[in-house]
């Protein structure tokens, strides 16, 4: 198991190295010259040259990459070109925290309800309940996030005034979490739900056909015990992986929702950095997003291995 863990973490590091190189290259080919962008169109050539020298922009690309990576790893993420030359690290970390809060809230909403619906649909395969659940989840996922977001704002925020129209990051107060994050989390839930429900349903349907279910029933166990003790522990394995992956995705992927609710998450920071061609900021935030996505992958694999004895000891 430790060997497995070490190898997997090794793989993670390699992934991060490769993606960091790719990101670095990609940010280089973005149109426009950074120095000009920062200093303005009318900057004198000497100023531009000085800026480039100060920022290492005149070095060959591989050197620039190595420099950037070393600084990044040692925690020196530099300052942004825009947003008032703010130091990048605190900014990204703060936004990351906000994104995580939203992801946690979304998980709290989406996971229990999706699993419940998926299990029910699977147990009632092809019966009316199953069809209703499928149609419902699929039609919800068909709606774009800004539509569900606007509907939620119009009804629950503007209409009933239960929630603010724009969400700000909550503090330590639980009630504040609900007040600020319920609407964006609901929107994200709609996106995730169909996926998790389908996964769960498929797992349950597959497992119910397996001979061990008959063995369990013929022990005299009640239907409930057969399902809860025997079927679900196998049926939910793929679902758990999907949930872990979605978590990674939510850290950088809720761009539309963050915009609709004006929520300062990492996704918005990233899009802003692209728009303004703020390379250091963009690189740092994309690295964070990738880091979380890859880690979620790793965690998904580990969870799967941990919960699935067939993988664990091989």
């Amino acid at each position, binding site marked *: 198991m430790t*060997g497995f863990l070490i190898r997997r973490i090794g793989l993670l590091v390699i992934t991060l190295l490769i993606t960091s190189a790719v990101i670095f290259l990609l940010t280089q080919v973005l149109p426009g010259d950074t120095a000009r962008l920062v200093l303005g169109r009318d900057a004198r050539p000497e100023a531009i040259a000085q800026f480039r020298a100060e920022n290492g922009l005149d070095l060959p690309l591989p050197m620039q990459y190595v420099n950037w990576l070393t600084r990044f790893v040692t925690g020196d993420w530099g300052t942004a070109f825009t947003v008032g030359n703010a130091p990048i690290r605190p900014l990204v970390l703060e936004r990351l925290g906000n994104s995580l809060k939203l992801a946690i809230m979304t998980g709290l909403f989406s996971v229990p309800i999706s699993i419940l619906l998926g299990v029910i649909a699977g147990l009632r395969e092809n019966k009316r309940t199953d069809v209703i659940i499928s149609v419902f989840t699929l039609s919800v996922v068909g709606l774009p996030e800004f539509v569900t977001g606007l509907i939620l704002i119009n009804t629950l925020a503007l209409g009933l005034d239960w929630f603010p129209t724009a969400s700000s990051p909550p503090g330590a107060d639980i009630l504040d979490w609900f007040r600020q994050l319920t609407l964006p989390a609901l929107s994200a839930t709609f996106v995730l739900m169909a996926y998790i429900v389908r996964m769960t349903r498929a797992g349950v349907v597959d497992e119910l056909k397996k001979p*061990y279910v008959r*063995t*369990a*029933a*013929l*022990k005299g166990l009640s239907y409930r015990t057969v399902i809860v003790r025997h079927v679900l522990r*196998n049926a939910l394995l793929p679902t758990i992986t999907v949930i872990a992956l979605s978590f990674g995705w939510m850290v950088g992927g809720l761009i539309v929702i963050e915009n609709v609710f004006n929520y300062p998450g990492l996704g918005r920071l990233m899009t802003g950095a692209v728009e303004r061609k703020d390379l250091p900021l963009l690189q740092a935030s994309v690295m964070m997003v990738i880091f979380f996505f890859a880690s979620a992958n790793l965690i998904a694999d580990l969870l799967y291995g941990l919960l699935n*004895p067939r993988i664990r000891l091989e």
Partner: protein
Amino acid sequence: MSGKPVIQVRDLTLEYKLKSGWTPAIRDISLTVYEGQIHGLVGESGSGKSTLALGLMRYMAANARITAGTILFDGQDITHLPQNELRKLWGKHISLVPQDALAALNPSLKIGQQIAEIVRLHEGISSAEAHARAVEMLNQVRIPDPEQVSRRYAHQISGGQQQRVTIAMALIARPKLLILDEPTTSLDVTTQASIIELVRDLMRERNAAALYVSHDLGVVAQLCDHVTVLYGGEVMATAPVVPLFTRPIHPYTISLLASLPRHTQATETRLRTIEGAAPALDMRTTGCAFAARCPAALDKCHAARPPLEDVGEGPDRYVRCHRWREIADGTLVIETAPGQTQGDSAPLPGHVLKAHDLNKTFNVSGMFELLTEKERTGVRALNDVSISIRARSTLGVVGESGSGKTTLARAIIGLEPADDGTIDLMNQAISLNLNGRTRDELRQMQMIFQNPNDSLNPYRTVGDALARTIKRLSPDLTRDAVRARVLSLLEAVRLTPDYANRFPNELSGGEKQRVGIARAFAAQPSLVIADEPTSALDVSVQAVILNLLKDLRAREGVSYLFISHDLRAVSYLADWIVVMYLGQIVEVGDADQVYALPSHPYTEALLSALPTPDPTVNHMPIVLEGDPPSPRNLPTGCPFHTRCPRKIGKICETDAPPWQDAGGDHAIRCHIPADELLAIQSKGAP
């Protein structure tokens, strides 16, 4: 039978809802199992034996219903007992030992938990107590180190142990009735022998009743006290085991027994077979279910269903046949003696194929393994294997799973090329790899697969498939010539011309296998490699296929490399046999030599483990200890030393044994000289 009846089934009819409406799967079944009795339920696929076995526990598919009859369990009528009441019986008073143990165990629950939950539920004891009971039960089913095993998962133990675990599960609550649904079908012969011994001992000890479902007449003869024979969803005969096997009076039972492959001296003998296939559920007629295939059928057999009649030999012998009286008093004789094949079929001089010192090691490869495996361990699947096949003869390769017999077949055909060694086809060296062989070399060697579905395209008619093969090999043939060849091939495998227009899903398993054979012969090969060609088929169909292979050998003059775990099938067809164990040949000889003493200790165990389909023969299998070692980790010295009951000492563990000459071309790889081996083996089992 002395004990009291545990389960009594009276005139039970169970129907399935098919597209065509409600159709009976089993009809008018009556059967009683007594305390202390092992009752065998014999039938081929489609006979309804599994439906009956589960149906009498009242475990039925959602589209099934009981329409007539009663089931009395321990005096209580359970025919219409509600589910919650049934649950109190299941696992406690009636329990099931399922067929495929690995699939029947929950993959992600520890073995101990799966056993313990039964007694926790039915006896309400604490989990610590239940765990102790589970461990004790594992000990009773003779699992070494039960405490360890109870903390493992199903996939971490061997197939034989998995089956022992299911037996432990079934017995832990001390049920009155145990239903065993083909519990040894997926196991190797030597493992099967030890499981059967276990079942027999445990049942004797507990005085419970057991219903043993099986298609294997040998196992039933050796294990059961009473036997019921099912065909087409009906009871054909039920009788105590000895009279059923020694004086069968139902034509189906008689034919079934006659069709069992066995070791015969002459190559020209043919088995008696039951032609045709069992009727599909919705194709059953109003007459006798067996009429379409019965050699003694009369007009009235097709018109009226015979009743289940008391033979008047004690209380428990019944038979369903219009003509049983004639059979019983000897006026009607159903032919059972083996027949003769047409034509000359003794081996010809010269060799079709010679393979010399083939070696094959499977490396664990692939991206994921390379990254995750610490050390790469090779699996030594073939270890200096040499064989030669004479013209118009059959080389039988016998071995259990892990012996390397399938690897050998695939290495010869070139699908998985051997790492080194040589192969000569018709005295010409050929490439080890399929891609390096000429068209003609490829044509010369054809293959018949275990599962005919693997090689048949479901969207192409039989005629089409055959025509394509013919065309590919001789592209200049005219359409008419191809057509004629297709028909002659169909005729050779005894299928009528209209089969040319059928699709694979319109064929029975046996018919598909015939098409597979026809396809192999379409190329006019000189060597046909058959990898377990009959093991997926029913007993009566197996015999038909074996006969067909024998006839074709005489007619077409081909040779076979026949690979099987079924010693009887091999001995029926093969004139020359090699026995493999863990990738090595341990014994070679002609069929008579291999079957006679002296034998390699492994062959000896293998032969003794085969249950004889004769209950009057006192059968004492040599039970091998433990499981075969993993091929990743081959034992040093003699590969069989970890389980060999004849092991003579350290030398077996350290030195590879030499070949001992046992007379003629018979050779045995063992440290014990052939004459000594003969002397000790003649004294009886170790």
